[in-house]
């Protein structure tokens, strides 16, 4: 029975698919579609001819790699680039103990009409714990490979029901290609819509399917597509041992449910750690009908499909305690309405960079004009920030250097001026940097807390003004922090402000500390006084990842920014300027 099962049961009981509303959660992984990146490219006249496609994946007859239970599969999708390298586009969630998974998390990809887009799918059996861990942080080399499939995106789009079935292949030694199962991929075009509904579901009088205790119910909501197949769109969490369960609110976008009249199938299952969840009952209701159930305080009886008697009507009922329809604006909606993005720059002047007079130093100014790591970072990153910051005036600071008065400062004006810290444009940053190199001696230790505090001060002052602003502090550093505690404290203090901190790492150090600050593993930063960061405001990008062609500057820098920005404005119910109040 349950005794010798492996696998992360807690992970298997999590809710999937509904959009979370906590301020600390960011937009789910969606590498191919990023508002901020698209906007940047469009501004330069680069209008890619594409439409957004959502792929739903499912598999049959996967290989069983676990000894005492079944595999916990997850699928990863890649795009094969011209040089043969694979670029990861997205991942599904992990499903517990299932050799025939129907994944709920969709993978979004831009369908470019003129290009040949080769998609490569890898299916893994996840061995590590995945409860409350964002799927993108799972290290693939630690998991068991279950098989690979390849197809071309246009092939899927041209099929009548936009579905393709592929054989999974793989080499498991012995040179023999065993039958590893089938992967199905179904494509749908995403409809950009801003309507979101938040629903509180509850059930009463559910049938008991467990022998020694009560059922552990959860709901799965699917949408019926034209071909009358049902595509699952979300799943609630599991409530243990309860025949009258109440779940956390489910938040669905119109992209997920189609329209308010589209029929949805709502199934109630009893969770089993074996993966064979038993159906308790199901009902078919559209979003509009769910709204009616809420208003009229009525319940919908579940039915149980039976071969002999057709649908048997059960005593168990589905109730809607709360139904809220709201509009969810996108990052671009805010920016184009006049929300200002203001950038600030801080440059590392600590001695670990190396004596600027020696060619091996990260701060070496080559007389031949070749740019050093810092100059390259400032130029490339500056291009992006200059685009988003309308007045192009940036406060610019240095930290860890000994200024002309002989003392070490952890936030000195890069322009060397006593009257103000602003520079104009990327050229302004480059000039200030060059002059600072002449007048400031590299020292130490490496602390970010002073520049973070300065940025936080600026951000908090804007709170009392009327015009809405969001601030981004860009820190360019060679990466080894001396005072992790002080830096974490400063970041936690700033975590409730309209501020994001983008850290760019130059050089070849081990940037492990930066990855902790980035908090992508879901661990919220905790200060020394016991305060926990309200939201994740840090994003870290190592420059060498950008130069290896793995990811573009624009992509890397702006990846988390829309999510961090939206988590701030949505939690405070701030709308784009002039937009009607929700």
């Amino acid at each position: 029975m349950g005794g010798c099962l492996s696998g992360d049961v807690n992970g298997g009981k999590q809710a999937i698919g509904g959009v979370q509303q906590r301020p600390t959660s960011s937009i789910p992984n969606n590498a191919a579609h990023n508002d901020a990146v698209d906007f940047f490219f469009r501004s330069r006249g680069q209008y890619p001819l594409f439409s957004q496609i959502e792929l739903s994946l499912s598999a049959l007859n996967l290989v069983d790699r676990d000894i005492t239970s079944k595999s916990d599969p997850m699928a990863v999708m890649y795009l094969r680039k011209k040089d043969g390298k694979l670029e990861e586009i997205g991942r599904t969630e992990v499903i517990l103990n299932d050799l025939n998974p129907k994944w709920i998390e969709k993978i979004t990809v831009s369908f470019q009409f003129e290009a040949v887009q080769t998609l490569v799918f890898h299916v893994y059996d996840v061995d590590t714990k995945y409860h409350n861990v964002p799927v993108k942080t799972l290290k693939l080399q630690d998991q068991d490979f279950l098989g690979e499939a390849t197809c071309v995106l246009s092939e899927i789009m041209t099929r009548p029901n936009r579905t393709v079935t592929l054989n999974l292949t793989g080499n498991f030694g012995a040179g023999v290609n065993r039958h590893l199962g089938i992967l199905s991929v179904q494509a749908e075009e995403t409809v950009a819509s801003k309507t979101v509904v938040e629903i509180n579901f509850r059930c009463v009088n559910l049938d008991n399917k467990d022998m020694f205790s009560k059922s552990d119910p959860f709901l799965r909501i699917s949408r019926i597509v034209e071909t009358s197949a049902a595509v699952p769109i979300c799943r609630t969490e599991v409530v243990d041992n309860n025949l009258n369960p109440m779940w956390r609110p489910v938040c669905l976008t119109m992209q997920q449910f189609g329209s308010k009249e589209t029929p949805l199938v709502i199934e109630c299952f009893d969770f089993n750690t074996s993966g064979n969840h038993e159906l308790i009952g199901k009902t078919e209701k559209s979003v509009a009908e769910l709204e009616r159930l809420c208003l009229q305080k009525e319940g919908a009886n579940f039915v149980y499909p039976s071969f002999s008697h057709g649908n048997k009507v059960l005593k168990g009922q589905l109730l809607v305690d709360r139904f809220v329809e709201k509009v969810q604006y996108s990052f671009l909606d805010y920016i184009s309405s006049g929300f200002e993005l203001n950038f600030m720059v801080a440059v590392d002047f600590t001695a670990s960079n190396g004596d600027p007079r020696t060619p091996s130093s990260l701060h070496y100014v080559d007389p031949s004009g070749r740019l050093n790591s810092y100059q390259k970072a400032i130029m490339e990153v500056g291009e992006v920030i200059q685009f988003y910051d309308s007045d192009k005036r940036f406060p610019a600071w240095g930290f860890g250097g000994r200024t002309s008065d002989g003392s070490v400062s952890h936030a000195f004006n890069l322009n060397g001026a006593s009257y103000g810290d602003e520079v104009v444009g990327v050229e302004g940053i480059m000039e200030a940097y060059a002059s600072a190199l002449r007048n400031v001696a590299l020292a130490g230790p490496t602390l970010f807390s002073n520049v973070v505090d300065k940025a936080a001060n600026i951000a908090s002052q804007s709170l009392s003004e009327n015009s809405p602003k969001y601030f981004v502090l860009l820190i360019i550093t060679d990466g080894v922090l001396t005072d992790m505690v002080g830096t974490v404290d400063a970041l936690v203090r700033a975590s409730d402000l309209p501020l994001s901190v983008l850290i760019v790492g130059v050089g070849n150090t081990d940037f492990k500390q930066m990855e902790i600050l980035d908090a992508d593993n879901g661990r919220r930063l905790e200060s020394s006084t016991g305060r926990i960061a309200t939201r994740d405001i840090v994003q870290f990008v190592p420059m060498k990842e950008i130069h290896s062609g793995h990811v573009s500057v624009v992509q890397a820098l702006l990846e988390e920014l829309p999510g961090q920005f939206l988590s701030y404005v949505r939690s405070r119910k701030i709308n784009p300027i002039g937009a009607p109040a929700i």
Partner: protein
Amino acid sequence: MIFVDHHNHCITMTKTLEIDIRSAEGLKLNRKPVMKKTFAVVKIEEKSRNSNLDESRRSDPTWNYKTEMPINGDAKFIYIEVFYRTGCGHDKKIGEAKIPTNDFMGRYSPQGHFNFLSYRLRDKFGDKCGIVNVSIMVKSDSTTGACSSQAAETGLWRPRSETPSIDGYGGRIVTGVPIWCVAPTNYYSSCVP
């Protein structure tokens, strides 16, 4: 709210806090996730308010309990405690969080601004037992005016010279000196109704 203490000083320093105890997560009892009904309590000095009981029996309950409470301007901490209810109806404490008032009445928080804050809960042994999420907004009903209009007219109302205990936004401590201390005859003649 204006108080006059035995030195006849006028002290105006209470504020009102709009507190929303939103939720908690990772609640643990003896290192195991809590599976009981839970509620939270906000404590400011001797006053406390209890939230509703979350009946979902989860280690990440949601309360969304909103309340308004007065706070003395020089209070240094407020406390949030989380309890569970036993089968017999007794309440037992899981842990508490100590919130420095500087975190919502400090440099980064103008009045009227909603502060979304999260804190580590610790049990009686000092071990970590979860996180509590709250939102706090400071409403002020303090005045910096004189105790009485007559005090203002005579110009004897003046602020105290020491630095105020509240950082940043108008919550100054003022000393009003009754006129009769300084010019008794004049006062009696003008004030007798």
